[in-house]
């Protein structure tokens, strides 16, 4: 498409062409960056939905901790009796560390997750070990970490991490799942219970035995069960609360849709700014080259040929603007992702091939469409009139 003649034609007024290309590039860069952010959000939403498929989390209210003492087996049975629930497995989730460092991060919090074997099995479809080895029963000093956690805390297989005053060796690192688990440490269930025991106030510590602690129960649903109904029933039990997964997913969907709207808005702004810029450039170019168009017509150029030549140039401006904008957007996404990773936050952008190709196609079509009016004017020029102009 970009023949050397088209490039030479564009380079007749290099600064004007460059400014027009930059105008489109800025619009495309905004489109690509916001689009990549939205794509990443959609990926996180879909992976999180998949990870929570078939389960409902029943959280234990902190004030209920003393009351559930020595009742884990009984509570598990009580929760398992809820219609549609196949089983209830206790788990322990607590923050990796307290204090400002936890709050400064962007993205999901860093967590320590203590999983009994049955719950660990449920995560196999979401998580898989990419380096090292997974949980091994019997060795309570081994932990596994998520990919974002490994990167932000700079730990690898064999390294030692300190969790609530005790040291644990990292046996494996999970591959990226784009879920909350990427920034988590997976510890043996009993060890996580001990950590919670240490974290509760001293006054309460005497009344709670570590082996009776659970922060939530994972309710495994029977196929076809409506998780909303199960969540409603959990909320009727004193000391428990559950979030309706449908409502949670709907909230995430709303956020994703909001980002889609932002993309549309960015695309619209790019459309208006870029289109006006190309229209202005091409109208000026046609005005400056009126005599040249007259010569082309004298040589036998049809209206369609002149139309195509001018539109080809404007499409080339759009394509070049798209390429520069895509490159700029990719660099910006990579830079912001690197900064986020250094700060221990999750990956923010997902610059997909379809988004990249879409942005290029969009900018090229925008360029071509913006050239229609000036091209039409050029095509309809009377050759004699055009040749008279100097």
């Amino acid at each position, binding site marked *: 498409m970009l023949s050397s*003649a088209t490039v*030479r*034609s564009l*380079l*007749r007024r290099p600064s004007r062409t460059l400014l027009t290309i930059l105008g489109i590039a800025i619009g495309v860069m905004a489109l690509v960056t916001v689009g990549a952010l939205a794509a990443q959000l959609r990926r996180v939403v879909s992976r999180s939905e998949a990870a929570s498929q078939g389960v409902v989390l029943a959280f234990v209210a902190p004030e209920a901790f003393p009351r559930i003492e020595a009742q884990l087996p009984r509570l598990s049975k009580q929760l398992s009796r809820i219609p549609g629930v196949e089983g209830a497995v206790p788990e322990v989730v607590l923050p990796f560390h307290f204090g400002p460092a936890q709050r400064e991060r962007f993205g999901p919090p860093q967590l320590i997750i203590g999983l009994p074997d049955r719950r660990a099995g449920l995560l196999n479809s979401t998580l898989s070990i990419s380096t090292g080895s997974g949980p091994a029963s019997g060795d309570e000093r081994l932990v596994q970490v998520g990919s974002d956690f490994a990167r932000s805390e700079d730990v690898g297989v064999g390294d030692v991490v300190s969790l609530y005053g005790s040291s644990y060796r990292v046996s494996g690192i999970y591959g990226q799942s784009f879920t909350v688990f990427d920034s988590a440490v997976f510890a043996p269930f009993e060890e996580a219970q001990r950590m919670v025991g240490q974290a509760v106030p001293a006054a309460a510590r005497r009344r709670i035995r570590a082996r009776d602690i659970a922060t939530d129960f994972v309710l495994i649903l029977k196929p076809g069960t409506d998780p909303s109904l199960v969540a409603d029933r959990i909320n009727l039990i004193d000391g428990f609360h559950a979030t309706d997964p449908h409502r949670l997913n709907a909230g995430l969907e709303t956020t994703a849709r909001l980002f889609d709207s932002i993309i549309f808005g960015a695309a619209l702004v790019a459309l208006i700014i870029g289109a006006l810029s190309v229209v202005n450039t091409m109208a000026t170019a046609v005005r400056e080259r009126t*005599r*040249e168009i007259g*010569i*082309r*017509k*004298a*040589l*036998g*150029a*049809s*209206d*369609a*040929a002149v139309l195509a030549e001018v539109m080809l140039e404007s499409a080339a401006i759009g394509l070049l603007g798209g390429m520069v904008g895509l490159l700029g957007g990719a660099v910006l996404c990579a830079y912001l992702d690197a900064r986020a990773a250094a700060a221990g936050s999750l990956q923010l952008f997902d610059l997909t091939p379809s988004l990249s190709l879409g942005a290029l196609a969009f900018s090229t079509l925008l360029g071509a469409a913006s050239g229609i009016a000036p091209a039409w004017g050029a095509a309809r020029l*009377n*050759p*004699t009139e055009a*040749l008279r102009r100097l």
Partner: protein
Amino acid sequence: MIEFRDVVKVHAPKSPREVRALDGVSLTIPRAAFAAVVGECGAGTPTLLTIIGALDTATSGTVLVDGALLHTGSRRRMAQLRARRFGFIFQGFDLISSLTAWENVALAMRYAGTPAHEARRRAKELLADVGLDGRMDHLPGQLSGGQQQRVAIARALANRPTIVLADEPTGELDSTTAERIISLLQAANERYGVTMIVVTHNHELAQRCDPVIRLRDGRVVG
């Protein structure tokens, strides 16, 4: 053969700027002639050339080329006619500044529908014929006036036209270069049997032409 029968051309009719550029012109130019059109400024010579070259239409009267009415049909047909039957040489050379010498020549052939590779081959052949072997890839700005006019001649002959219209082809050239250009035009006329119609103020050039059509105030005066 070109025939004008009582051709009138009025620019900006019924307006304060109305100009009767051609006022009942009748003339005949035989096939393969080397004709000159001479006249002072405002005589109507450029208008005559644009009407013969199908760039413009007459207000009234009849224009025939080889017995067929010239100005009939759509804009597209007129464009095709210009591409296939006519060649144009302008006073100011008027090459496309962003195209190289061979691309300027090939462009005319591309408009006539010649395949790209064939257009390139013939363009280079024509440039060699006018003595520009070593200047094929030069842009117009890198060529002298005489060289640019030779490119323009090659471009005018590209589609093997039956009629070449030249508007002051030596107007911007020194006498030596002008002589060379006149020789090239004569050679093309003799070699290809092209009807050459030259608008000129150059007496030496006009003396070599037959017929010589003199215009004054839009009328043929001799």
